[in-house]
């Protein structure tokens, strides 16, 4: 019975010129966005691979120089592009994808397209995520706003009722019918996506992204199902198709346009993050008195500690080179400062994320946005995970350089090291967290989506039971 209703709903929709036009537009945009994403991914990952190789070559071929100069020369670390970012670029345009790892400083990320973008572009960028989060729900609204009210207005609802069709069966059948019609659009689009993913990343990477893709798909399915339920519930309880459409468009705008904006404003107001300038200034203040300056109190304390450790009475008698020890001490002091500053900053960002999650209780778009970018590998926690790995690599380089100075520089003349030392630093390699890591962080958002879906389903059943034929 339900299947029969679903089949008829689908037949009707497919024969309806409006659905065909709207469906063609959404499909074209979605497929276009995926292909653009694919192209972007290919370009960026090629650039990334080339740049990663170039920075490594430069490091290895920097010739003979003092290890500390090499540390200042530094290397770049590039955030690997996860294939699924072709669907959702997440925060990458804002957080950047490359960082310069040099002595003394934990740098900010570079290559942030959003820096060069105008405000209008915030609305303009076409990604799969935009289409899925904004346009597909709009299509659902347009397909279902008159599901019940339209049949009542037309009079077919009376005929259905006179046949002894249960109202909830009707609601279930209609839900399934919309699902089928959407499937006609989304399944081919998803196939294009999978093919593009495989083409871009190769089969092994594709298999590795499968769990992320499955979770991402699940979160979108929950989101769409919630929209179908809400639309059916509104259509069943609204006095007319007109009012159902107005209510649903209102909700769509609140959900997709107003709530996300409001959430970031609220988050900024409740948990303000420092501006980049303030943040840099704060670190500058905390760093005062670094390892180059032996006159500082810290320098003296270091000397005293070293004399005691090696049981000698003057600096000249130390078996190690003091400059190296001072540099490493300065690094360690800096590291403490950076750790404190960044953990404060990231804590603030985490709290802002909490505000977004709270708002997503009222607007499922925020929840699906969060899960989508997270499973795509482009949310802030995964950015922080990479930043952490890059920073550890930076600290390792500094340690290797400084220990070499301690051991080999001696106390006179200019010390130079060469390729052997540079090769002691392994190339930077980074493994992104697996789907389980993301899932653990995204379970609240997934739960909110599941809750929306369940509540919308209950509302649709409840409202369909109360539909009046007049």
């Amino acid at each position: 019975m339900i299947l029969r209703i679903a089949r008829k709903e689908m037949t009707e929709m497919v024969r309806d010129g409006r659905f065909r036009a709207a469906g063609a537009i959404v499909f074209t945009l979605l497929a276009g966005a995926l292909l653009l994403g694919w192209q972007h991914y290919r370009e960026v990952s090629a650039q990334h691979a080339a740049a990663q190789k170039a920075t490594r070559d430069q490091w290895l071929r920097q010739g003979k120089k003092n290890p500390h100069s090499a540390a200042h020369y530094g290397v770049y670390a590039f955030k690997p592009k996860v294939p699924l970012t072709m669907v959702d670029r997440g925060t990458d345009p804002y957080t950047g994808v490359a960082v310069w790892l040099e002595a003394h400083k934990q740098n900010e990320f570079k290559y942030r397209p959003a820096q060069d973008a105008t405000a209008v572009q915030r609305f303009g960028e076409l990604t799969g995520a935009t289409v899925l989060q904004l346009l597909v729900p709009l299509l659902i609204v347009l397909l279902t706003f008159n599901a019940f009210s339209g049949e009542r207005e037309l009079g077919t609802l009376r005929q259905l009722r006179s046949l002894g069709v249960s109202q909830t069966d009707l609601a279930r059948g209609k839900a399934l019918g919309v699902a089928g019609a959407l499937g006609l659009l989304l399944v081919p689009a998803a196939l294009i996506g999978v093919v593009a993913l495989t083409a871009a990343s190769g089969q092994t990477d594709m298999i590795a992204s499968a769990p992320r893709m499955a979770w991402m798909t699940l979160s979108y399915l929950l989101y769409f199902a919630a929209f179908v339920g809400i639309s059916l519930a509104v259509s069943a309880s609204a006095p007319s198709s007109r009012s159902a459409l107005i209510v649903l468009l209102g909700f769509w705008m609140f959900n997709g346009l107003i709530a996300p904006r409001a959430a970031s404003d609220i988050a900024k107001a409740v948990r303000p993050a420092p501006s980049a300038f303030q943040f840099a200034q704060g670190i500058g203040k905390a760093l005062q008195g670094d390892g180059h300056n032996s006159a500082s109190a810290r320098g003296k304390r270091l000397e005293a500690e070293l004399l005691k450790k090696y049981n000698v009475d003057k600096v000249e008698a130390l078996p190690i080179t003091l400059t190296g020890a001072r540099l490493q001490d300065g690094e360690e002091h800096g590291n403490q400062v950076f750790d404190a500053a960044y953990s404060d900053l990231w804590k603030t960002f985490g709290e802002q994320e909490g505000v977004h999650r709270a708002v997503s209780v009222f607007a499922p778009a925020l929840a699906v946005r969060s899960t989508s970018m997270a499973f795509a590998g482009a949310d802030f926690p995964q950015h922080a995970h990479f930043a952490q790995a890059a920073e550890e690599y930076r600290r390792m380089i500094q340690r290797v350089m400084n220990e070499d100075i301690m051991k080999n520089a001696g106390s006179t003349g200019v010390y130079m090291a060469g390729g052997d030392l540079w090769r002691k630093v392994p190339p930077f390699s980074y493994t992104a967290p697996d789907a389980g890591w993301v899932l653990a962080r995204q379970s609240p958002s997934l739960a909110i989506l599941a809750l929306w879906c369940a509540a919308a389903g209950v509302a649709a059943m409840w409202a369909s039971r109360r539909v009046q034929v007049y």
Partner: protein
Amino acid sequence: MLEANALAKSYNGTTALHPLNLSIEPGEIFCLLGANGAGKTTTINLFLNFIPPTAGTAKIGGLDVVQQPLESKRLLAYIPEQVMLYKNLTGIENLEYFTSLARGSHTKAELLGFLEEAGLARADADKRVAAYSKGMRQKVGIAIAIAKKARALLLDEPTSGLDPKASNEFSELLKKLSGQGAAILMATHDLFRAKETGTRVGIMKHGHLVAQYATSELGHADLERIYLEHMHD
């Protein structure tokens, strides 16, 4: 087959139907006459459980329509003034959909047979109903009733606006169905058809069933005279 016991309906203190007692047996065609707003449609809607009664009960084949809304409907077919169909589906697709929702399962040949029985031209069965005339829609409605083997028919001015030939064909179909044992309740303004087709007529006024006659007792002229007398305040 169709039975009303002190069936009444009022809206916010305005009475649409005063307690009505009525029983229609298989093979009977009961025609409800009366001005607009006299309570004819209200009566039919109460039998369909589209609106809840304020008092009394309506039963179809002994099943209370409020207590057993889905079961009681399996016995009946409903043909409104305009049989409304899904315009993007063809006549036969509409029939197939409606009959399958009524838990029927028919082959295409059977469905075509029902449409033919209802008088729809074979060529029209595969056209989308957006292009159908009212008469063609009513025929699909009849075909649904035939396919469902309905034992009770509720008809709300089904022939208003039909041309005389179509109206005549419709009446013939009703007679055939009643001959097969269906109990039929029809609201109509067509006194001539009521006399021709009906076995009994009832005249409604301000929510009261004011008079009932067997059509065999009346001539055409009598029915019109009696009707106008009742309408006269």
